[in-house]
């Protein structure tokens, strides 16, 4: 079953001769509980596509359907709630709150939604990501890999419909990249999460069940597998 359906989506920035066609007619379906890697050169529209799926951008044309809901019919307030409940974001630069402990950072999205944490699920996530002993520490006390693991746990804690990871290992060396991407894949599989990851690293793309290649804002058809 498809969790994300993108139909003939275009996203242009600016107007007139200086207009940038970031996404230029992309149609794509992403299956539930699968790991999809989006690869492409910088400027190919990877991040724009991810932001369209996450409801951060509104498409210039076309429809984006996530978990059965057409995002263009939602109001700004509804979109905020959609992002909070249905999407888990993992960014390259972690975006952790420095004043909060690792535990508080992980539970932060639930606090925003005034929801109770599922304690059992929380314990499973921190165990799987090797954060069990670090819960009362602050982000600056952890390595880059540890901080990204915290961001992964934070993305998973709300049990979202889809986890979007934008170059999650972009700032790491080869070894940490493999470690963190491996853990991201493993936790997504263990907890039946749909994972969409942007990467420019061909070796990491091999971890995915499916690779979508973007070029000049379009999907390269033959390379999908």
């Amino acid at each position, binding site marked *: *079953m498809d969790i994300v359906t993108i139909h003939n989506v275009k996203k242009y920035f600016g107007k007139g001769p200086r207009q940038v066609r970031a996404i230029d007619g992309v149609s794509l379906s992403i299956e539930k509980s699968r790991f999809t890697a989006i690869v492409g050169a910088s400027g190919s529209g990877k991040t724009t596509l991810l932001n369209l799926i996450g409801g951060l951008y509104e498409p210039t044309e076309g429809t984006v359907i996530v978990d059965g809901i057409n995002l263009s019919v939602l109001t700004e*307030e509804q979109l905020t709630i959609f992002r909070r409940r249905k999407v888990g974001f993992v960014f390259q630069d972690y975006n952790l709150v420095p004043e909060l402990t690792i535990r508080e950072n992980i539970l932060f999205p639930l606090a925003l939604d005034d929801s109770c944490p599922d304690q059992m699920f929380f314990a499973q996530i921190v165990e799987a990501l090797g954060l069990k002993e670090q819960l009362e520490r602050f982000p600056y006390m952890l390595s880059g890999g540890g901080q990204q693991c915290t961001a992964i746990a934070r993305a998973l804690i709300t*049990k979202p419909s889809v986890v979007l990871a934008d170059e999650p290992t972009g700032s790491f060396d080869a070894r940490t990249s493999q470690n963190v991407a*491996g853990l991201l894949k493993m936790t997504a599989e263990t907890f*039946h999460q749909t994972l969409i990851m942007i990467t420019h690293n061909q070796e990491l793309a091999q971890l995915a069940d499916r*690779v979508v290649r973007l070029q000049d804002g379009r999907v390269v058809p033959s390379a999908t*597998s």
Partner: protein
Amino acid sequence: MKKLTNCSEQNCRYSRRGPDILLFVIAFLLILLCVLWDYIPPSWIRIVILACGGAVPGLVFLWRQRQRRQQSDLANTVCETIDALMDDREPENYHPYEDSQVSKVQGKLLQYYDRMQEGRRQSEQDKQTIQELVSDISHQVKTPVANIQMFTNILQQHQLSEEKRAEFLATMAAQINKLDFLMQSLIKMSRLETGTFTLHMESQSLYHTIAQAVNSVWGKADLKNIQIDVECDSDTIVRHDIKWTAEALENILDNAVKYTPEGGSIRVTVRPWQFYTRIDIADTGIGIAAEHYNDIFKRFYRAQEVSAEEGVGLGLYLARGILTRQKGYITVSSEPGTGTTFSVFMLNYSS
């Protein structure tokens, strides 16, 4: 039943509490009235205070009524949602992205329903996988069986020289061996596909597991004069299933031996990392084109250029399945004509 009785007792207690509070409020107002009569002479002040005293319980009563109504609305919506989901239809009044309690509960219920549906879909998919398996197996078994039948017929119906007879029997024996190997692989594959294999995860030295895998391909490598070097500390401990991991590594090594020309070399390097232990198996073989990186792990995939080599195309598929079940993964990088490196990543503390 006991639960029900407890419930009704509780309800009685709540309903008895209503008149109790009313009596208490009336008594409180009467006392207030007496006190006011004695200490506050102007009558209008007495009336205002009395009215306020009367208004407070009134407001409390209204507030409680409103709360009850909200609770009953929430319960009704939840019941309606469950009813709709039981009938396999979208619930009415479903507002998924509202900042309200109802929407939150509805969202969770739908998520639960979705999970259940997913299980149903999974079992349907499993059925399809089994069907595909059966068709794949019959397809694979067909050729050797047909060959054996053909040679049996020839042997039965024709007068052949002793030499020819021996040659045909040898060909038949080779086909039977192939069939045997195929059956072994198919049994492993079906156990992997249907999830009926049990992993015995133990924290053990990886060194012995690698040694076991290398041992089983040593003979073949020696015949082709291929050198195998292993770089692994004996104290590298990883939580893994020894038997199945050795099988996975053996399959990768067997593949390396098969596609490395005579006089080549294979190097196994083990590096323990923070979360994963990386095992690189690098050969000086014919290599794999980048567009086939995903294909080589598919069931029964055989590259056209290696069709002359013996094999059924299950080794790497099994290796990946075994490693994935242990929460590890496998990647490949290759330079056609120069060699291939398979990198196996095993989770250090996998449970």
